[in-house]
């Protein structure tokens, strides 16, 4: 108890530092997953992708990042075990941040595509189960989270399949693909705008101080969707279409139209990623801050301190800015046969899945939904070749991440305990 009072400032400072470190790691590690398909399909240049990522990751983190944060903060562990020893919770969460951030650093260095969500969840479960008590983990909740890691890629794959098939039916497999592309692509843009704005309005705007009734929320979302669609139409009408188009050029022109759509879905993806993954960094931090500032009382309903969300958002953007270019450059070199019409289907599906899941407060893995979505497009026979062995490696690195995060957080937990006790 007195530890928390005596060292309150230091504890918060350390947690904030580690939280920022973790957020920075998320930005550096996931930038490729969030923006890779847009750069890979040449819809965006590296520079454009980084700028979009910065703006929309920040917006997603700040506007819609609150819901998942509370799950990470108090869903994974059973707070009943920490009532008598709240400092353990503080140490554990701080250790988890450090462990997860550290693991991301190692993985990025070795070139493993790990999931930031897995590393933080593994770390929290690790310190709670070993450092405190096996019963201190809310296993039911954890099972739900782990289950969502299996279910969400499947859902995302299914959505991607449907989106891609609809694009085939409405646009590619018609007499005049170009005309239909101009007609239907704005609709996809509107859909993307709708999903995004709806989740933001319903889940994210509370802490900004906006309270809308459900009807108002839907109205706003539809309004934004229509606006996005109209803007998209304008952008498409300004495209330079090669008029001497034979059938071959036709699809090239159609892909040009899809490239504009890709810009919209890239914004979505960045927003979705920010909204879901910022929580991995600031959830534990929020827990520490609320326990320390309430002098050891573990509040059931603690509001997020005002500076926490921006800290996480800035951290992610910093990671993007510093490491983004390097990661993107490797994508630019690896020439993939990925057309905008494929990339859009995968991104839109992944982004929709992520924002919907964020709305329910589940910390899902953005990387996983994207892999699921890509597989979905592959199943719809839209991708020339997918490398299954790479997918296997990715899955293995996800599985390894859980125990790795756990082991490191246990070690850091005991170190912190020794320092402060």
């Amino acid at each position: 108890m007195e530890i928390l009072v005596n060292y309150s400032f230091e504890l918060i400072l350390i947690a904030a530092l580690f939280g920022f470190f973790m957020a920075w790691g998320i930005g550096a590690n996931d930038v490729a997953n969030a923006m890779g398909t847009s750069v890979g399909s040449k819809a965006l240049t590296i520079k454009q992708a980084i700028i979009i990522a910065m703006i929309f990751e920040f917006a997603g983190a700040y506007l819609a990042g609150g819901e998942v944060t509370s799950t990470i903060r108090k869903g994974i562990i059973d707070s009943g075990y920490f009532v008598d020893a709240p400092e353990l919770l503080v140490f554990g969460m701080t250790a988890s941040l450090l462990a997860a951030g550290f693991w991301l650093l190692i993985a990025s260095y070795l070139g493993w595509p790990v999931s930031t969500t897995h590393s933080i969840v593994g770390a929290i479960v690790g310190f709670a189960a070993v450092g405190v008590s096996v019963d201190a983990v809310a296993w039911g909740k954890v099972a739900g989270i782990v289950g969502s890691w299996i279910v969400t890629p499947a859902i995302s794959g299914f959505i991607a399949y449907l989106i891609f098939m609809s694009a085939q039916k409405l646009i590619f497999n018609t007499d005049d693909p170009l005309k239909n592309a101009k007609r239907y692509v704005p609709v996809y843009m509107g859909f993307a705008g709708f999903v995004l704005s709806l989740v933001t309005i319903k889940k994210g705007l509370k802490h900004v101080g906006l309270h809308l009734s459900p009807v108002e929320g839907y109205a706003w979302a539809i309004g934004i969707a229509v606006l996005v669609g109209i803007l998209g139409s304008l952008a498409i009408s300004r495209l330079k279409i090669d008029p001497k188009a034979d059938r071959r050029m036709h699809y090239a022109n159609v892909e040009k139209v899809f490239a504009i759509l890709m810009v919209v879905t890239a914004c979505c993806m960045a927003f979705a990623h920010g909204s879901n993954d910022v929580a991995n960094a600031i959830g534990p931090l929020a827990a520490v801050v609320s326990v320390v500032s309430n002098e050891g009382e573990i509040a059931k309903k603690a509001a997020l301190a005002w500076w926490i969300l921006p800290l996480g958002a800035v951290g992610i953007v910093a990671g993007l800015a510093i490491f983004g270019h390097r990661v993107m450059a490797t994508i630019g070199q690896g020439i993939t046969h990925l057309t905008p019409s494929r990339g859009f289907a995968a991104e839109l599906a992944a982004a929709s899945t992520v924002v919907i899941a964020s709305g329910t407060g589940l910390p899902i893995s953005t990387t996983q939904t994207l892999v699921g979505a890509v597989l979905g497009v592959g199943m719809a026979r839209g991708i020339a070749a997918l490398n299954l062995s790479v997918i296997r490696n990715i899955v293995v690195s996800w599985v390894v991440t859980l125990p790795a995060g756990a082991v490191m957080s246990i070690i850091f937990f005991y170190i912190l305990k020794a320092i402060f006790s």
Partner: protein
Amino acid sequence: MPLNNIMGVFAKSPIKPLEEHINKVHACSEELTKFFKVVLQQDWKAAAEIRLKISTLEKEADALKREIRLKLPSGLFMPVERTDMLELLTQQDKIANIVKDIAGRVLGREMVIPESIADDFEKYVARCIDATALAKKAINELDELLETGFRGREVDLVEKMIHELDLIEDDTDTMQIRLRKQLRSLESELNPVDVMFLYNIIEWVGAVADQAERVGARLELMLARS
């Protein structure tokens, strides 16, 4: 190098190289027109040069074939069967092999094509090369097929091409029968060994069209399964 991101999942497309391969093969078979032109003039020096070019193109096609085979590991997930793709590649490659054999044999024996059948023979060669041109056109639709997910009207378009390819092959068969008849009436005036080889060459040129048709058939199978 392990790619630290999702992009490693996308393997290199086998479709573009497959198109490149058939383009190379067709370029090789197109040389036959020029080749027989100089053979009819009995300009063996020029014929040797063209044969060298044919052989180079055939080697390049072989190199492409090997590269594609190495790039198609079994861990790939593709919209069409991997085995179909490899089989299609094999069939494509055989066209170039036959062309090389024809040029080698004609040059090696310095074969003289009788004046009276020269015209028909040239037409016959041209028709056979029409077949490889169409096979090339059909294979070059692969990336459009991918765009439409190997479905719908693009498939119909390719089916039409394959049907046309069959018709061309029928044509060449008819022409071949006529040529053989004409050659038979000349037999008594020619060296018997030369005649045997002429029959041979007529057959091999026909085989180029047959092989082009087989490429079409393979493509058709690929589409039928998907």
